């Protein structure tokens, strides 16, 4: 067997094994290097996997050589590939930039453990994505969640602790709901393998437990994915986490839960339950619309930079879910594309925020006056990523907005109204992004406060690179677009 065949397993195993190893690395300063190396390897594996599935095939892998119904199965297709790229890319970018910021926020003695937890989050998240087994998804979900609680609480901000506690409560409830759903399905079908479940659900005579299971799974995952109104844990957790952790988690954590939600609802339930797609649309569409509008409105009035962006994340989750709720080729590829593009935009924004935070202790908008004069590169990168978040043409964000609007137009008689909602919320995004830009560029600096220099070059380089990627993928989106289209086709095929 060549190396390629083992890549799905290595994707999970490498970060997981690196985690304990870097705890033992001496001297402690090496922990960062070790973690970054592991992340880079993960990213390369993700790229290799993407190239391997680009032609539309699905890679199957049986752990330990045990075939699927008995052993643990992994599978990678184009949909997983997009998410893998997002996760490993965000993780690598954050780690590459992280050192100065982490050194500032976390004592050296605790750093090896911190980086170990970081790698566990990575391994958990990629584990969720490559698993083809409903129960393993639960286990990986908990690995990543438990480790991410540690990351968020690891910083110097004490307000992170109650935030994490809330996150822990809601996250555990979400995961347990999912577990109940999986249990009910196992009860009715006797299998945990996603493909087998799909095969056997059709033969189940008493459909009621399956319906209950669908409800539990959808709600549980929606909680993890911070779908409005189950998002209350997000703003505080993102705001008070160490800045680099916010970069990593904001770019990919909720999207992974959404990924599982989409997988389950399309591949498992829509294929077998009558009218499930209608019920799913009825569930998802109103929530996503409310989420988009309300979270954008909230973001317009938040005074804290990170909290404002966190609120915007909830609205963006709404966009992704809206595309999914159309149950159409165009809608799904818009959503998959938006997962990719939003990770680019929001990751870049939070990287720029981390740069600002390196110099500014207080990230409330009224404290950030005149930052552009002192940190021109950081602020320029912020503007570019902000434009991408708004969806200005020429940036990555525009591509997914365009796809989403075309999908909405095709979606039926309400298409026009949906387009109006998307456009209104884009205008709200202009407001909440531009308020920040005004503060950075035109507001008078607070007396006696503020930095004298830019953020460290290491952080600047990564931030600038991500900002450029936002432009690059706005002009040349062919590769992610191909992946997204193929993923959408795959999901729809599964639901037929």
């Amino acid at each position, binding site marked *: 067997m060549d190396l390629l065949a083992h890549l799905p397993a290595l994707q999970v195993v490498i970060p997981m094994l690196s985690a304990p190893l870097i705890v033992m690395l001496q001297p402690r300063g090496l922990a960062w290097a070790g973690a970054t190396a592991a992340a880079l390897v993960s990213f390369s594996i993700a790229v290799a996997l993407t190239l391997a599935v680009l032609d539309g095939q699905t890679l199957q892998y049986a752990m330990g050589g045990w075939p699927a119904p008995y052993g643990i199965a992994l599978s990678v297709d184009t949909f997983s590939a997009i998410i893998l790229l997002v996760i490993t890319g965000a993780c690598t970018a954050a780690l590459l930039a992280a050192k100065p910021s982490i050194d500032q926020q976390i004592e050296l003695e605790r750093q090896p453990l911190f980086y170990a937890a970081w790698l566990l989050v990575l391994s958990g998240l990629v584990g969720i994505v490559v698993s083809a087994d409903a129960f393993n998804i639960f286990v990986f979900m908990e690995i990543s969640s438990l480790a991410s609680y540690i990351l968020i609480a690891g910083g110097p901000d004490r307000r992170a602790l109650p935030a994490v506690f809330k996150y822990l409560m809601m996250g555990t409830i979400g995961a347990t709901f999912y577990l109940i759903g999986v249990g009910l399905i196992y009860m009715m079908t006797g299998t945990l393998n996603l493909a087998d479940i799909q095969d056997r659900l059709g033969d189940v005579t008493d459909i009621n437990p399956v319906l209950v299971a669908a409800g539990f799974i959808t709600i549980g995952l929606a909680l993890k994915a911070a779908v409005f109104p189950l998002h209350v844990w997000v703003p505080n957790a993102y705001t008070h986490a160490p800045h680099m952790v916010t970069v990593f988690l904001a770019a990919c954590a909720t999207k992974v839960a959404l990924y599982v939600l989409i997988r389950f609802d399309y591949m498992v339930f829509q294929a077998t339950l009558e009218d499930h797609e209608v019920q799913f649309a009825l569930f998802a569409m109103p929530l996503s619309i409310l989420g988009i509008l309300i979270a954008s409105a909230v973001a317009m009035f938040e005074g804290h930079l990170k909290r404002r962006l966190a609120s915007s994340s909830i609205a963006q989750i709404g966009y992704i879910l809206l595309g999914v709720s159309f149950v159409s080729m165009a809608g799904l590829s818009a959503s998959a594309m938006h997962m990719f593009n939003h990770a680019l935009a929001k990751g870049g924004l939070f990287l720029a925020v981390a740069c600002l935070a390196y110099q500014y202790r207080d990230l409330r908008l009224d404290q950030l006056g005149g930052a552009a004069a002192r940190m021109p590169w950081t602020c320029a990168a912020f503007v570019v990523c902000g434009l991408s978040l708004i969806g*200005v043409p*020429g940036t990555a964000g525009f591509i997914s907005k365009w796809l989403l609007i075309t999908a909405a137009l095709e979606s039926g008689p309400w298409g026009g109204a949906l387009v109006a909602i998307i456009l209104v919320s884009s205008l709200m995004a202009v407001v909440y992004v531009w308020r920040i830009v005004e503060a950075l560029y035109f507001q008078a600096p607070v007396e006696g406060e503020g930095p004298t220099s830019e953020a460290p070059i290491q952080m600047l380089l990564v931030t600038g690179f991500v900002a450029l990627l936002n432009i690059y993928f706005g002009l040349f989106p062919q590769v992610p677009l191909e992946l997204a289209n193929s993923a959408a086709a795959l999901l729809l095929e599964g639901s037929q």
Partner: protein
Amino acid sequence: MTPETTILVAIGLPIVGALAISLAGRIGPNIREAATAITSVSLIWVVWGLIPTLMEGGRPSIEVSEVMPGLSIAFTVEPLGMLFAALASGLWLINSIYSVGYMRGNKEKNQTRFFVCFALALSATVGVAFAGNLFTLFLCYELLTLSTYPLVAHKGDAATIRSARIYLGVLLSTSIGLFLPAIIWTYTVAGTGDFTTGGILAGKLNDPEIGLLLALFVFGIGKAAVMPMHKWLPAAMVAPTPVSALLHAVAVVKSGVFAITKIIIYIFGIEYLFESPSSGWLLYVAAFTIIVASLVAMRQTNIKRLLAYSTIAQLSYVVMASAILKPLAEVGAALHMVAHAFGKITLFFAAGAIYVASKKTEIHQLRGIGRRMPWTMAAFTIGALSMIGVPPTAGFVSKWYILAGAFEANNLVAVFTIIVSTLLNAAYFLPILYIVWFEHEKEGDKEHGEAPFLAVLALTLTAILTLAFFLFNGPVIELASQVVKGLS
């Protein structure tokens, strides 16, 4: 260099120039100004070098990236865009000369940012001019908005920020809220957004819808300042005068009317629109804007605000001329873009020169200023006469063509509007000329002479252009006629 690559060079050159300017800004202001000058001269050389190809009937075209199937970033040079690009690049050079005089004379801060953003705005303008399809047009249109925002907000105080917010707010919300849906609608209906002679929508839409789509386009292109989307233009007057002169009299606003004209000619097709009764409203809205903006202009006391409202009215001339939907009137629209540019940039230059020399901004302060600043005020007079349309100025030529088109179409509304607005223009420009030349200064006014030499040089040049256009307009008309060749 093939014409195809020339297009990319023309768009990329100001961006490279912007980089050079920002680097040169660290060395010293003289090097920086040299970088601006070199960039603008080479831009003229590149852009004007395309004219012979166009005259021979060539339509160079290049695709940069196919973003999505059917949706590509592509540039095509056609006569209307050529005219616009040549105009913008030519006036940029004169404006740069003026800017140096103005910015130094006023001791403005952040001059490097100013010149960098100016170069970027020019790149976007050339992009708008050469856009080969709706998507590319939209892309460059938005870039133009964003790159001019720092210029409007240049002063940086609270009132300026507020005005800049109106500027950005109106332009972005109209473009995202109306222009973008119109584009998406067009792509869904026609399957393409390429600018094609004769239009791409013929027979694809029914009657009430076509009027609606036209409305989305016209009001979505906020830069054209068709009422009620005109609020940003007076707000933008907080910008330094060179910005008002080149951008808010030429590049930005002309991008708006240019886009509308181009969409009417190449997306709808004038014959198709002519046969659709539901598109008739555009003429009335434009006429309304002309009359009302002229009336509002009469009540202004601030020179720049008066010029802003006059600009709103003059822009709607172009829109109205396109809306007449006759080839002769389309030529008039193209000519008016040029003629108004010469006249209005002269007027703004003069207003800025007055401000630099004497810090005066209000009309009633101008008593007898003609004797202190004879060159400036002579140029101002020429510009004002061109706005009214008096021969021998540029404004006369374009009005002539628009009128001819209106008569050809038997469009009495247009004829009437042109006559009334000419009277109104005279009613608000002539009193200024009277104050300037024939009244006497108040006692105790500050002693001052002419503005800095570079500023006076620039405005003299544009005044000469305004006069020269009356006599030597042959090449422009020839180019403009190419637009409608084979149409009727």
